[in-house]
């Protein structure tokens, strides 16, 4: 008895092409299945077909083929019945949680099924124990951490005793350690006899729990269906992130030359003037405890800084001080040598560009052109400069030609690029990005980061020769992103900068990384293993590189 999908196709009412095109596969109880694929390949639609939202909530599309849930044809089942066979955890637990407190949240589905109160109570206690969240039962859901929210969302689904659980990108909002805990739990559920289906971009993390079955989707079709070893050999390593050793081996086997990108030396050694300087900064919210302690650091021209550390460590809070969205309770933040305390956020925005994580929190204008003009107009740039900056910014994010389109009609990845462009038009000297890659697939964010980094102005170039910003700082949970792009890494934990320096210095201490809830990746291990071959020479002192670059070292 399995979940069997046979020749499944689906065509959304408003779309030109089929989103799913003749899929057939099978998910077995006791197995973990990994479904991978680029954005828009149809993964989420497949989940909606299996859990019955298509065609029951999404009406008007064309569905063909068959889905059999443990011997029953879904076409004949109601959502209430399917919900007791298939549990679904949506991508953003924040939007899955419908109750104000944890007990009510776990109870929700059981209440809807009309179960007796005693049984509901018994199931809540049992599920909470299974997921080790009994201590959370009386807490408010809004105040939970990302990892806790996800466990609570899962508990609400598991309490309905499904025989299969579908998870849509469960790792997206978690720090690496919380992600690993979540995955261990999935393995445990599968071993207990549940069919676990995980859709995820971060396949290296999922491979750690040894999925029995892997499916790769591309443009609405299944292009690979088999075991993990076969997946690693068959999919394009530029489309999806594979373990470093696999990429190196495949790049070598293919004999492709991947040139080592020239990266500038971390300018601390050059000794250039700082753009932003934190002096003894301490911060706490009104009536709350201090959340940042003794922050001392400077950001200089030419630096690409990655801030890494666990959720809630204070990374965003720290960087928001640079633009005055947070103000130090103790100490000073200097911007271009001037104490920022006397300046408004709008004044600071001329030097500091801050890009928030979610583009939907900032896009509002009817056209891309107006969206991009909003910032520079606010800080008083003239029309001619704005037009010039708009052209440059769109070129930087590779979206020239979209000027007259409504930003909200673009794809998520494009919206993300527009949100950065709308900061670049203000001509900031430093650009700060909070989780720049969140919600984008590997190929998308790799191109995106390549574009941004290549437009940074290095020391040698004067402002007139090339437009662009002089320094970049980004917050990320993705250690490999930091390894590939940063020339300086700040490790932040418990409101302090625990380590700060060149990547090969900060990331050498893997025990310290583990203490900060960061798990060393295969790319880090490969880079550390290659350290003796990447001795610094001249300006190209950046010793960490991508897996493809490492492949051709020596």
């Amino acid at each position: 008895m399995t979940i069997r999908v046979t020749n499944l196709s689906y065509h959304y009412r408003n779309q030109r092409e089929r989103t799913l095109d003749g899929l057939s596969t099978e998910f077995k109880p006791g197995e973990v299945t990994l479904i991978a694929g680029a954005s828009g390949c149809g993964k989420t639609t497949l989940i909606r077909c299996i859990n019955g939202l298509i065609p029951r909530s999404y009406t008007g599309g064309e569905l063909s083929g068959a889905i059999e849930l443990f011997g029953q044809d879904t076409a004949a089942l109601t959502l209430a019945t399917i919900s007791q066979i298939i549990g679904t955890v949506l991508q953003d637990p924040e939007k899955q949680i419908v109750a104000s407190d944890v007990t009510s949240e776990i109870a929700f589905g059981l209440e809807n099924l009309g179960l007796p109160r005693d049984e509901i109570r018994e199931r809540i206690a049992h599920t909470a124990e299974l997921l080790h969240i009994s201590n959370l039962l009386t807490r408010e859901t809004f105040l939970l951490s990302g990892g806790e929210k996800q466990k609570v969302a899962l508990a609400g689904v598991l309490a309905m005793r499904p025989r299969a659980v579908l998870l849509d990108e469960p790792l997206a909002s978690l720090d690496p350690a919380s992600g690993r805990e979540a995955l261990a739990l999935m393995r445990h559920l599968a071993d207990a006899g549940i069919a676990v289906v995980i859709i995820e971009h971060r396949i290296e993390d999922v491979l750690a729990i040894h999925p029995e079955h892997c499916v790769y989707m591309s443009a609405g079709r299944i292009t690979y269906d088999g075991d993990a070893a076969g997946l690693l050999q068959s999919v394009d390593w530029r489309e999806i992130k594979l373990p470093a050793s696999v990429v190196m081996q495949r790049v070598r086997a293919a004999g492709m030359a991947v040139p080592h990108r020239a990266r500038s030396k971390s300018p601390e050694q050059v000794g250039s003037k700082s753009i932003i300087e934190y002096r003894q900064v301490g911060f706490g919210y009104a009536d709350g405890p201090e959340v940042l302690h003794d922050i001392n650091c400077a950001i200089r021209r030419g630096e690409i800084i990655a801030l890494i550390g666990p959720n809630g460590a204070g990374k965003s809070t720290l960087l928001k001080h640079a633009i005055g969205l947070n103000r130090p309770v103790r100490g000073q933040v200097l911007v271009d040598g001037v104490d920022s305390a006397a300046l408004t956020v709008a004044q600071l925005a001329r030097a500091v560009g801050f890009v928030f994580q979610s583009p939907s929190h900032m896009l509002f204008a009817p056209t891309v052109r107006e969206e991009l003009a909003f910032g520079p107009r606010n800080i008083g740039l003239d029309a001619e400069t704005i037009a010039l900056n708009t052209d440059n910014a769109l070129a930087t994010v590779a979206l020239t030609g979209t000027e007259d389109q409504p930003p909200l009609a673009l794809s998520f990845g494009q919206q993300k690029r527009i949100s950065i462009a709308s900061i670049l038009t203000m001509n900031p000297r430093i650009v700060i990005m909070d989780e720049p890659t969140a919600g984008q697939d590997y190929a998308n964010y790799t191109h995106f980061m390549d574009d941004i980094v290549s437009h940074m102005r290095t020391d040698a170039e004067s402002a007139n020769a090339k437009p662009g910003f002089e320094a970049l700082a980004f917050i990320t949970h993705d250690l490999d992103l930091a390894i590939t792009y940063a020339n300086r890494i700040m490790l932040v934990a418990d409101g302090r900068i625990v380590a700060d320096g060149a990547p090969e210095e900060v990331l050498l201490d893997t025990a310290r990384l583990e203490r900060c809830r960061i798990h060393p990746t295969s790319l880090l291990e490969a880079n550390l293993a290659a350290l003796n071959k990447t001795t610094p020479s001249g300006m190209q002192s950046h010793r960490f590189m991508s897996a493809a670059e490492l492949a051709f070292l020596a």
Partner: protein
Amino acid sequence: MLVTWKYRPRNTLMQRLDPRARLIFFLCYLLSVFMFWDVRVLSGFLVITLLTVLSAKLSWKDTRQTWLLLGSFTTFYALITFITGRAGNNLYQTEHIIAVLQAPFVVLGWQPTVAISIEQVFLALSQFSRVSSIAAITLLIPYTFDPAMYGVTFRQLGLPDKLAFALDLTMRFVPSLGRDFAMTMDAQKARGYEMERRSGGLLGQVRKLTPLLVPVVIHSIISGEEITDAMDLRAFGTQPRTWLRRLSYARRDYIVIAVSLILLATSVAANLSGLGRFWAP
């Protein structure tokens, strides 16, 4: 910035009462206050209100801002009533002037003059007592009403499942909405947006708010769709649902409900028989 409900569990009679009894009391009390303009009756209500507020045992630190806002609002409102005598025309026909205040200056040939009558003074006092009573009792609710109880309270007062759960859902998402708003505000501030620098007429002011409103509204619509999916997937609305929490009346609840109904009946009767209208010595 975190937006959370200000409710805290407290061991007070008010919070031990069945929430339904409290709602019934609240409604009856509100309607009763509306029945009167006589400052002698209204000051009685004001005393009851103050006692109720004191019995809630709210800490000054938690509620300071609310009370200061309430105090300045009611005082301002009463002052306006006092100076203009607004709404007085319906309540009294004759006025007895006790003092005439003349401004010691002349503006464009007009010397501001305020004639003060006994009626005006008492109208202002009545207004102050009424507004304070209503506002203070209402403001108690978010502080003393467990947000997790709204749905079940209204369900057991007879609302259908879906409507009652909608209340719970509202309570759940108000803090999220607050956070989205704060994030949008920060994101736009980082683009040089300044709320304070509002200019232009009403239309201009609304236009100035679009960078805040559009993202928040769009975000809510998208979230709304995802929440609907999440609820559908957990069988919401497919059959009559169980409510895990169950309210049951205790003896004190019956007493509170009885007192509330008697209060309302008495007030309505008084009003119909012409008692409790505007009074001035």
